[in-house]
């Protein structure tokens, strides 16, 4: 049995602040570690990782009855999804092993993709 999961990479305020304070060379190295991670796990990654723009750029649409409103980010959170990727692995344990080596943001949500 194989399971598809979406890994949602979650940034915290502290992580974003610390990252912003890094020297350009250190930022470069941090990105390289992330690319390396995608390379190391390429056989299990079914789409390329996608980095999202900041939460302040989000537009949330609420369909409340007949009225449609749009506004900023859906959640004003201290933890914000900053990217995602889809993986195809044996089971949750394999996903957990993979995630343990993730070199960047401190929180990852692993959610199985529902079979439609």
């Amino acid at each position: 049995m194989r399971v598809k999961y979406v890994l949602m990479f979650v940034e915290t305020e502290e992580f974003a602040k610390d990252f912003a304070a890094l020297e350009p060379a250190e930022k470069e190295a941090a990105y390289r570690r992330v690319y390396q991670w995608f390379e190391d796990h390429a056989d299990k990654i079914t789409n390329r990782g996608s980095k999202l723009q900041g939460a302040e750029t989000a537009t949330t649409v609420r369909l409340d009855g007949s009225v449609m409103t749009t506004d900023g980010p859906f959640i004003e959170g201290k933890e914000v999804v900053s990217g995602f990727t889809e993986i195809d692995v044996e089971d949750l344990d394999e996903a957990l092993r993979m995630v343990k080596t993730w070199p960047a943001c401190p929180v990852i949500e692993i959610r199985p993709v529902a079979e439609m």
Partner: protein
Amino acid sequence: MDAGDELARVVRDHAGRLAGGLVSLLGDFAAAEDLVQDAVEVALRRWPVEGIPERPDAWLFTVAKRRGLDVLRRQENYRAKLALLQEPEHPPPDDRLRLIFTCCHPALAREAQVALTLRVVCGLTTAQIAAALLASESAVAQRITRAKRKITDAGIPYRIPRDDELPERLTEVLTVIYLLFNEGYLSSTAERAHSRDLVDDAEWLTALLHGLLPNEPEVAGLLALIRLHRARTAARFRPGLVLLADQDRTLWDHAAITEATALLTRTARRHRAPGPYQLQAAIAACHSEAGSWDETDWPQILVLYDMLLTLQPSPVTCLHRSIALSYVRGPAAGLAELEALAGELNTYPLFHATRAQFLRELDRPAEAHAADERAAELTTNPAQLDLLHERLATQQLGTPQLETLQGEPR
């Protein structure tokens, strides 16, 4: 052992095996578990009336299979699987190990791990689990249903963790069992002081795990710890809580103490650095081996607490260490160590009860009384409450020490 206990033992021994075998065969955790649970419930109804069958495992298997047929007849895709079902003569022993690791998977909430382990591995019914955990039956049922759904939907594997994952996952399993033991040993709820059933389950599970993983030192350590505490049960409740200092040591199960201590020694000889369960068991062994309270080897206990603290720093362990320290270097030294924990343990009843004891020994009775009152306000355990009230009523100096309640650092 009465018929009820015997029945519980039989169900426990066979429900886990059966569940393990069925999950392997069906490849469907939830379906297999439902079949077993149905069979267990029939057994609990019928065995007390009809007597325990000659081969309880075969009986359970037959019922599970028959019930399964009723359900599966409507589900065409299971029919082929069912045809494969043979009565497991000797199911591979690691089936139950796989079961334990699945039930205690770190992706499940702690409460779900506990309920699921009691249900699937020990074979308890929802009603029994609810009674043991003092939760409502509907809450337990929901917890179990959600957990089983998550196992299937989130892709939690039914297998023994790989070698590199085993230590971490085994720690998770031991935490669940330790939680059961603690809850049974000194219940946090007001309804009763002590629940024998959960301690039985915790011991049984640890013994099972020890049988399946004989070379894991911390499993042996936890088994020794539970058995050392159980060996003192007869003296500990008469029927109120009797502190270690006041227990009638002739009532202790000395054969069980010797056996548990020997297990601990064997384990220590094979592995160099003892883990937290072995250290806690070693502390319990020091108490168990002392001929009287006065003969307690406090310096040795203090060393063991120091080792425990380097592995697992916790304010509750610091509290127990302060008690040992007071016996080595006097109550003033104990009090000084204890006061440093005031911030973290302000709502922990044992902190105030211990403080009261030190203050009494230091001849500060008014402060001691106030501290005992604070402890009594905070505790919900009826036996602890009785003791504190007694102490507050008599107010005499040199009343019984609150024992170092090792084995329950919550």
